[in-house]
């Protein structure tokens, strides 16, 4: 086909045409929300990563902006502190020309006792097109997706999922390895409290990677095998021959009990040191979703070393979030029949 849809005449004489995006064979996202990696298939993940490749180029231009989401409003609603993710979403939104506003709960009426649903209903009354949200409760975005006309993008919910982090990790891995299938990926750290871990395991397994989960027995979540990951308490076994080593933060703030004897002991047993990295493949990449605890899960020599792609992950985050915002912007909740019928 050489007649691009943008180049079709607006004239009334033409036969009714499908809008530009309606090639039924073209890959597409099946949901109008992004609540988690669970539910995405390999084709949808590949579509997001491929679109992010195109978005990445925009970040390298002198004028880092395209007019795509002009006139669209995106609300960033963060009920938990975040610097990296919120900034990344804001930059992504601005590069696509969306109007954005960010609400941090410390300054919002949430502190006056308003419930989540009421807060969001009030925001919705002002007709935003998308809501990017982070919340301490697992499933909060899912709840909102049921009542909202706006598209909901999960920017991290409790211990459940953090889909855009897993997507940017996959994007970074693919940029270095050319593929995801068949790679040995060792994920070391606090697996139990980590939404990044859950999203990553689901994504990597969907794409055919071999995932090894490693941490103290107290921090390995039950039912890991159901996700298809192998688990071990030996960091040497996990890292041996790995293509990718991904470290996760020890989340003091989510720990109610004593999962590890001390941070110093954790570092001695699981901390990623240059000696441990040497067990991995020569072309290994070392990743960390941030924020890093140097000297706890990662040695500074590794964090700043030649295998580290930690800052690349951060820059790729913008491209991946642009891709997600773009791909979800084609839907309009006002026309969503399922929603009108109340599902």
């Amino acid at each position, binding site marked *: 086909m*050489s007649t691009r849809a943008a*180049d079709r005449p607006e*004239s009334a004489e033409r036969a009714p045409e499908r809008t530009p995006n309606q090639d039924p064979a*073209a*890959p*597409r996202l099946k949901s109008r929300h992004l609540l988690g990696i669970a539910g995405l298939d390999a084709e949808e993940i590949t579509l997001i990563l491929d679109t992010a490749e195109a978005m990445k180029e925009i970040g390298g231009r002198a004028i880092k902006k395209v007019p795509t989401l002009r006139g669209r409003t995106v609300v960033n609603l963060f009920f938990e502190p975040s610097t990296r993710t919120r900034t990344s979403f804001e930059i992504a939104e601005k590069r696509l020309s969306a109007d954005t506003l960010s609400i941090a709960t410390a300054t919002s009426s949430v502190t006056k006792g308003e419930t989540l649903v009421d807060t969001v209903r009030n925001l919705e009354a002002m007709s935003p097109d998308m809501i990017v949200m982070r919340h301490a409760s697992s499933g909060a975005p899912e709840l909102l997706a049921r009542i909202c006309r706006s598209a909901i993008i999960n920017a991290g919910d409790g211990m459940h999922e953090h889909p855009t982090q897993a997507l940017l990790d996959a994007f970074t891995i693919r940029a270095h390895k050319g593929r995801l299938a068949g790679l040995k990926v060792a994920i070391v750290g606090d697996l139990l409290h980590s939404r990044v871990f859950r999203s990553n395991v689901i994504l990597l397994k969907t794409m055919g990677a071999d995932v090894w989960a490693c941490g103290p027995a107290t921090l390995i979540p039950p039912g890991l095998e159901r996700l298809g990951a192998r688990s071990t308490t030996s960091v040497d076994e996990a890292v041996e021959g790995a293509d990718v080593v991904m470290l996760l933060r020890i989340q003091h703030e989510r720990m109610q009990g004593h999962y590890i004897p001390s941070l110093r002991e954790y570092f001695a047993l699981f901390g990623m040191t240059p000696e441990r990295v040497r067990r991995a493949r020569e072309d290994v990449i070392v990743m960390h979703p941030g924020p890093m605890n140097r000297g706890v899960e990662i040695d500074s020599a590794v964090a700043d070393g030649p295998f580290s792609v930690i800052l690349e992950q951060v820059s790729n985050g913008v491209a991946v979030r642009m891709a997600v915002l*773009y791909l979800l912007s*084609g839907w309009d909740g006002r026309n969503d029949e399922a929603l009108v019928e109340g599902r």
Partner: protein
Amino acid sequence: MPQVMDADRMSRALTRIAHEILERNRGLDELALVGIRTRGVPLARRIARALKEINGDDVPTGALDITLYRDDLMRHPVGPQPLVRRTEIPFSIDDRKIMLVDDVLYTGRTIRAALDALIDFGRPRVIQLIALVDRGHRELPIKADYVGKNLPTSLKQSVQVRLQEIDGTDEIVIEGEP
């Protein structure tokens, strides 16, 4: 399905366009070709090859994806968005003469989007437009500087450009009732 151009005539049309470019621009200094995805890209490379054969100079080529600049993108938000492909312009366009290449010139809306996209990359000295086929029915004040073939069509017809690099064959066919 009448064929309106075969491989031989397509190659001659592109060579003629290359000669016209040389004539109008008095040499290839500061010249670059930018093809609009999808089929403008191989066409731009072919014209660059033709220019090299005639003149011996290499002309840089780039690829432009206009999806994010389309004027109809957000007007009917009822489904999945069209695929975005990579824009690759591996040279500065500042003060260059840019030859923008597309396969079919029709309403002019693609070219409008392409001009917006290009200008985000810098400030070319001049932008000229090359179209393999001009089928008429413009909706914007846009005109090609170099045309392979002027092809009068009705709105009900569609013009298909097929290229070896993408479709395995070189031809232009016109489909539908006149």
